[in-house]
């Protein structure tokens, strides 16, 4: 089975999945092609793919590849 690494864990990869679809699945929010949430709010999430930042505007044009290392991060409590 094709897989990627998602936040340090192995995650199944369906052929043709875009980064945008992955972020939408993980966050449970529908995304516009701009990478912004369809609900008009702010997503508050950033994505690194193989140690490089992928701006949200490029998520929908970025197809995931076998063994990609994806980190999806957000704001949590901290000093």
């Amino acid at each position, binding site marked *: 089975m094709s897989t990627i690494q998602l*936040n*340090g864990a192995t995650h199944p990869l369906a052929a043709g999945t875009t980064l945008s679809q992955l972020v939408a699945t*993980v*966050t*449970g929010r529908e995304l516009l092609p701009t990478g912004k949430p369809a609900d008009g*709010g*702010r*997503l*508050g*999430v*950033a*994505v*690194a793919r193989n*140690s490089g*930042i992928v*701006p*949200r505007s490029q998520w929908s044009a970025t197809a995931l590849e076998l063994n990609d290392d994806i*980190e*999806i*991060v*957000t*704001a*949590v*409590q*901290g*000093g």
Partner: protein
Amino acid sequence: MTQTLTQTDPLVIDGIPLGSRLIMGTGGAPSLDGLGAALVASGTELTTVAMRRYSAPAAGSTGGTNLFDLLIENNIRVLPNTAGCFTAREALMTAELGREALETDWVKLEVIADEHTLLPDAVELVEATEALVARGFKVFAYTNDDPVLALRLEQLGAAAVMPLGAPIGTGLGILNPHNIELIVSRASVPVILDAGIGTASDAALAMELGCDAVLLASAVTRAQDPVAMAQAFRHAVIGGRLAAQAGRIPRRTHALASSAMEGRPDL
């Protein structure tokens, strides 16, 4: 009093006026609800967050809100930090993630040397400051209470320097007031006392020493009554700021009567 001070004495960083000189951290709070109440009670307009892996809200968690939403709802500007970074390289990546996720150029730069002291690693801090400034970040540099290093960070383009009062989470207060005073006296960017604050008088002292603002987290979030402590800090920062501007009396060796000796009745 609070209103007047808020309107006439904003803290301006990177051209942005902040009505409160109390900057809050969010670490250490047991619940998001409690944290929200404490933040509102503190009157803060700028609050730090850490960048970590996204995890779905736990099933049945109240409100379903997240920290970023909580800050937006309360009109609190967000300051992503680079907590947990040990190298300039990690800090740069974390800062970039924060900028992308939270749509702000501001970053609280923390590059620590080890987990026991949590003290800033000066070498990595200098390297990271220079690189982040070059990439257009507004760097709030968390630094040792070292007047030489603080000035270097300002010269590298830091938007604010944030010397520690004592190591993170210790609540030991301001261990070297003289150094803090020295940092303030030579700085042209805002000086924010960060870390080590234990109670309200520590924050008041920081302001009396001339600091432009105070940043704290644990002192509120880990207090027995975080909302009451947040209110205490709100007042302490205002009190310290007013005192710093009011011109304190000189210290004297001997007493000086405030009632006149003349005109005493013959008793």
